[in-house]
């Protein structure tokens, strides 16, 4: 197989849903970065005022981050 055949074969393997999958994965990676920002922001917010619910809110932000990471893994594995 020469190089031109290889390129043609590779291009033929590209499907619409394959492209959608990788767009989705890239979008989710950006979302993970955003979830990290939220964790940082929650830390800043909880420092501003002491409150009983601060721990719960921090936990929520971390759960949100973990869900975002889990969704990236799911998207790569399932799609």
């Amino acid at each position: 197989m020469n190089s031109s055949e290889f390129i043609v074969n590779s291009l033929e393997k590209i499907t619409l849903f394959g492209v959608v999958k990788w767009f989705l994965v890239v979008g989710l990676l950006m979302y993970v970065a955003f979830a990290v920002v939220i964790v940082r922001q929650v830390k800043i917010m909880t420092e501003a005022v002491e409150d009983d619910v601060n721990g719960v809110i921090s936990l929520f932000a971390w759960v949100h981050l973990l869900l975002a990471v889990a969704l990236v893994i799911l998207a790569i594995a399932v799609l």
Partner: protein
Amino acid sequence: MPEVYSAQGTKKEWWKELVDGVLEKVGEEPRRAMLGAFCVRPDQRFMTQQEDEEIVLLLRAHPITNLGWVLLVILMLVLPGVILGTGVFAAVPGKFVLVGKLVWYLVTLMYAMERFLYWYYSVFIVTNERLVDIDFENLMFRVITYANLNHIEEPAMVTGGFIRSMFQYGDVFVTTASEKPTIEALGVPWPHKVVDIISRLAEELEKRRERGE
């Protein structure tokens, strides 16, 4: 021999007596009302709080001001079911629909969390010494404004309209002599009580100053 006078004890507790007196005059006692939007003398602390400083009022916007985004979140939660029910995505593979739905619900969760955080952590604090306005304008931007009670002019409140009158909330504006002319608490419950407490605290502090204490 009984102790007649303790200068240290008096100095240590003067602000507590001052706050006790003011709250008694306005008929308030330590409480947490309106889902934490109106807290009188909460047992909490905030950043930059000093040793001889106590929170008298901790205010947030009235919970009803969250109604708009709560309704939007409910709509966002039911929307995938409605759209999928129409069969628009019938040609899309099931695994894409599943991941798409999960992404949608995660974004909805993030939006709800963000709006809740803005509401919960944007607070207006009245202490025995000053007013502290903590605002979060976006995820990365925090604005904290302080105004000493000795340097404020007469506070004012604005309320009106059907919803505000019904749920008894409004805006409080306090004019200061500093560079930022007003410090404001928007949409807080019972603004008349807030203005009353701020006025009385400022008055009591002024009296102390005149007495040279």
